[in-house]
């Protein structure tokens, strides 16, 4: 009943050869990462050792000639909650599918808890909630949760899982007849993902179709679950959600990791503040040379500067006598995300080698540089 793992046997990797180490492969500071640092993460660590929950090294995935992502390096420590952001939905879902062993990577190594993903799944250490899953007909909620739980080596009581997912009252309903739309279906999918009390839970855009209250209830359940030292990796396109529920945010754009850190770090990475003022007819051409400024946008006679040092920027503006209708606001995560993921064509240009046009990429290029600063 064994089958060859699609990722191939994980041969012990020589120290220092664990994939092309880009600046984006950042171990979360203060995380539960293995103590021996960068080298030799794969070797000498059995499945029960301190191998990280997720380890991608140089993972590339192509669809024919289309590249979903290239050279992805990511390490997720046990016990952390990580959000995966990507403006391009396909890249994110593909990354999660490769991570779970549903798709083989074109190149690179994937390891969950130090073993290939298929094996980690077979050992019952992984639970997942896929985006495209729909309820199958003619099964009761309790039946299906019990069935999935029984396939795991040490499942918690079914009643506890149902309570955690908020399904107590619906346990004897048919899965395909859950009323109340998406909210109950998501709760049910969550119950399946958590049924075996896996160490790693992967959720692909879990709350996309939920309203605010259902969203809150969902994250409440996840928090109760992570309270037991479990690792959660979720993807979302809703930034406040990532900021609120993850202790680490990984931003992927154009198939590469462009930012990696806590919400605050990601925000800081693109320039802490927005400085806006009226140009009042003055030229905005040389604004980019002002101290601290990383990006300039002029619209409707009003200049918006992204600045890592808003004080210096404002003082320089004051010297020029350019302070009109001045406004300084801290950058939001939305700003950060937009700055990090430039317009589609520029993003593609950037991944092709960074030789994209200058004017339009200024925002994105600055963000990318700043993101690398964070990663360092």
């Amino acid at each position, binding site marked *: 009943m064994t089958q060859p793992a699609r990722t191939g046997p994980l041969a012990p990797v020589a120290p220092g050869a664990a994939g092309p180490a880009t600046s984006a492969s950042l171990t979360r500071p203060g995380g539960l990462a293995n103590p021996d640092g960068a080298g030799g993460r794969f070797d000498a660590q059995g499945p029960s050792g301190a191998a990280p929950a997720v380890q991608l090294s140089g993972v590339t995935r192509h669809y024919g000639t289309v590249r979903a992502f290239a050279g992805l390096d990511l390490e997720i420590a046990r016990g952390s909650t990580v959000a995966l952001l990507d403006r391009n939905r396909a890249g994110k879902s593909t990354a999660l599918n490769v991570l779970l062993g549903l798709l083989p990577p074109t190149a690179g190594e994937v390891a969950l808890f130090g073993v290939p993903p298929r094996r980690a799944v077979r050992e019952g250490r992984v639970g997942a909630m896929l985006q495209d899953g729909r309820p199958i007909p*003619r099964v009761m909620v309790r039946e299906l949760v019990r069935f999935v739980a029984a*396939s795991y080596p040490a499942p918690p009581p079914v009643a506890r899982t149902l309570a955690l997912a908020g399904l107590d009252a619906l346990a004897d309903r048919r899965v395909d007849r859950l009323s109340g739309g998406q909210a109950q279906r998501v709760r049910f999918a969550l119950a399946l993902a958590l049924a075996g009390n896996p160490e790693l839970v992967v959720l692909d855009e879990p709350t996309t179709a939920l309203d605010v209250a259902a969203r809150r209830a969902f994250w409440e359940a996840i928090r109760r679950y992570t309270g037991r030292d479990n690792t959660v990796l979720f993807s979302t396109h809703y930034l406040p959600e990532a900021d609120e529920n993850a202790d680490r945010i990984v931003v992927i754009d154009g198939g590469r990791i462009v930012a990696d850190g806590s919400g605050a770090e990601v925000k800081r990475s693109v320039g802490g503040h927005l400085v806006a003022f009226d140009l009042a007819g003055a030229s905005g051409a040389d604004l980019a040379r002002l101290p601290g400024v990383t990006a300039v946008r002029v619209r409707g006679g009003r200049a918006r500067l992204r600045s890592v040092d808003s004080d210096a920027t404002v003082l320089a503006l004051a010297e020029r006598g350019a302070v009109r209708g001045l406004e300084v606001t801290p950058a939001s995560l939305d700003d950060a995300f937009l700055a990090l993921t430039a317009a589609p064509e520029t993003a593609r240009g950037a991944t092709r080698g960074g030789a994209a046009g200058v004017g339009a990429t200024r925002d994105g290029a600055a963000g990318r540089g700043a993101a690398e600063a964070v990663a360092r």
Partner: protein
Amino acid sequence: MIAYLMLEVRRTLRDSGFVIFGVGMLVAMYLLFSNLVLDGGDQQARTTAPLMVGMAAYGALGSALSVGTGLAEDRSLGWLRQLRLTPLAPSRVVAARALTGSVVVLPAIVAVLLAGRLVNHVALAPLGSGAPSSACSGWAPRPSRCWASATATG
């Protein structure tokens, strides 16, 4: 694997379409065809048993084929992907699905054979037994309705 087999069998038996068209309709068709008296009743004795066997086989085939459509449905719903993310080995899922195919043919066969026995009083001679008529007379209250004796005498 047994758990998965049970789950699938349960799902199949809860399918009212399966029960009505795969079992109920079959029995009704069998009873209708076997009791249609077209030639003064002479042919009936000779047709009930072959019809019973044929109808049971037809029902079994239909049920077996429904496993394939069920699988396609599960795949389109993403259930097979979800199963791949449980510790259940894919080979076991395939094996359980195949076993499901051999279990869900039973209701149609049993229902048609029961209808044949209880309503049409069909009795079949056990294989390898001596004279068909003796086996038949031991089984059926009305030997004239027994296919084996009918073929023996007719």
